[in-house]
């Protein structure tokens, strides 16, 4: 059994421009932000990004790395509209494939099941087919004769997800209330990279949590990255909540300024820049 541990930069070295990249988490929750930051440090672009979008999409869109985005929404949750995503979309910076949340899940499910599509009772009647002219329908072969949207498989070249714990073999554990769709992203991908808050021995995974918390199986994982605070500033319950103050800063700062201050260096430099910013904020408010 192989040790799959690697660094975020090693993950990025296995990615390439033009790839279809799935990013786990949901909105501004448990996003693999350390991996996204590593991606931003590279010159990889021309990506097709598949995501229930949050700041992962906002940052990659603002940095001009996205050629096509597949999503049902992009939000920061406590900030309903993602400003950098909006700005990029409004200036026509990338193509959008907009599908419904349930269609999106069916697409991942189909990819994981090695099916070309799955039927879903969603999309018809709405403008989703109008903006996805390639979307086909399928008619039930049984007596009911009902027509469904045939959601095509969302097969991914690579998936990036973030979990609470993992072992070096690639078994990933979530300890928060929601698995989101991270295991599906991994199963839908040719290569899956899992970052985690803490790398632990396999035996430690089930010491304090039940086996049902073992979300991601090693057979679906290519690489594991220990990335403490690796979802920052999105939430990673129960290890930490969303950094609302920093998220507000992200949302209200022009992208070039934010990127120059926080994303120019490596992950260590990012942490230091966030700390310096926080110190500055408390100094200004005077209530330390």
């Amino acid at each position: 059994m192989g040790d799959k541990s690697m660094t975020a930069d090693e993950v990025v070295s296995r990615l390439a421009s033009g790839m279809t990249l799935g990013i786990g988490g949901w909105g501004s929750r448990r996003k693999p932000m350390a991996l996204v930051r590593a991606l931003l440090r590279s010159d990889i672009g021309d990506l097709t990004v598949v995501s229930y979008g949050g700041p992962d999409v906002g940052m990659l869109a603002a940095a001009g790395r996205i050629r096509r985005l597949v999503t049902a929404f992009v939000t920061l949750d406590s900030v309903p509209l993602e400003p950098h995503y909006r700005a990029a979309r409004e200036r026509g910076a990338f193509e959008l494939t907009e599908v419904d949340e349930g269609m999106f899940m069916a697409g991942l499910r189909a990819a994981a099941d090695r099916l070309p599509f799955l039927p879903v009772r969603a999309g018809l009647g709405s403008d989703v087919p109008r903006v996805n002219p390639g979307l086909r329908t399928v008619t039930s072969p049984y007596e009911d004769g009902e027509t469904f949207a045939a959601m095509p498989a969302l097969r991914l070249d690579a998936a990036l997800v973030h979990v609470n714990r993992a072992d070096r073999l690639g078994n990933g554990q979530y300890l928060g209330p929601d698995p989101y769709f991270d295991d599906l992203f991994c199963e839908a991908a040719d290569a899956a990279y899992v970052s985690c808050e803490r790398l632990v021995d396999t035996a430690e995974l089930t010491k304090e949590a039940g086996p049902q918390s073992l979300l991601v199986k090693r057979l679906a994982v290519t690489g594991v990255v220990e990335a403490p605070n690796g979802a920052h500033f999105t939430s990673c319950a129960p290890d930490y909540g969303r950094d609302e103050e920093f998220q507000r800063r992200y949302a209200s700062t022009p992208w070039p300024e934010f990127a120059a201050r926080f994303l120019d260096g490596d992950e260590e430099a990012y942490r230091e820049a966030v700390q310096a910013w926080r110190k500055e904020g408390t100094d200004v408010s005077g209530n330390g």
Partner: protein
Amino acid sequence: MSQATADGDCGASAVTRAEYCVIACAEAWRGAGEILASPMGLIPSLGARLARLTFAPDLLLTDGEALLVRPDGTPEGWLPYRQHLALVAGGRRHVMMGASQIDRYGNQNISCIGDWSAPRRQLLGVRGAPLNTLNNPTSYWIPRHSRRVFVERVDMVCGVGYDRAAGLGVTARFHRIPRVVSDLGVFDFATPDHSMRVASLHPGVSVEQLREATGFVLAVPDEVPRTREPTGEELRLVREVLDPRGARAREVPEGVRG
């Protein structure tokens, strides 16, 4: 009416517009039985919890994350996003969504303003609206009724309206939009062609004011009912139990309009 009481701010003080909105939202779940109430936004959330505490005791509520909870917050089930989407497909749910635009047949838009291929304003995205509207009852809550929201034609159909559903045959057999609640009134689609109709006006709102704020011609019955008064117990629950800090008044401020 205006007489102050010694034992607090409940009881005698006048019912606010926000409180009529809570009652109107709560009524959406009357008789719903043992299904999931999915309210989006503060006023629908207060409405769902009020319904659960009074006339719809079998309702299931979420904490807005992955838990099913009793009104006091006690968990009674697990409902992560994936199961939530499955529950939508199964239909045992009545969601009350928001709408950036809505038209006379109940087509709803939360995706973008302007031409989708080059939007003037990018909004959230279609989210689960297409899935919701074909699979379970879907109502809408609009905190500020205006011509910008109640439009002749929405820019991007996310939630499916009655005219669109009519063309889908059996695929749309679960389609139903029970009601639209705004800060001016309650609306349904109980007309021959399923176009939007005034079901009730909140006290203090005139038909003229409503017409002025709506970008299409609403069906108006000869006698327009008023949104019903809350009972004393309902007011107590809203004011003392569900929203003691008065957040409802921030979503629907008093005295802003007629």
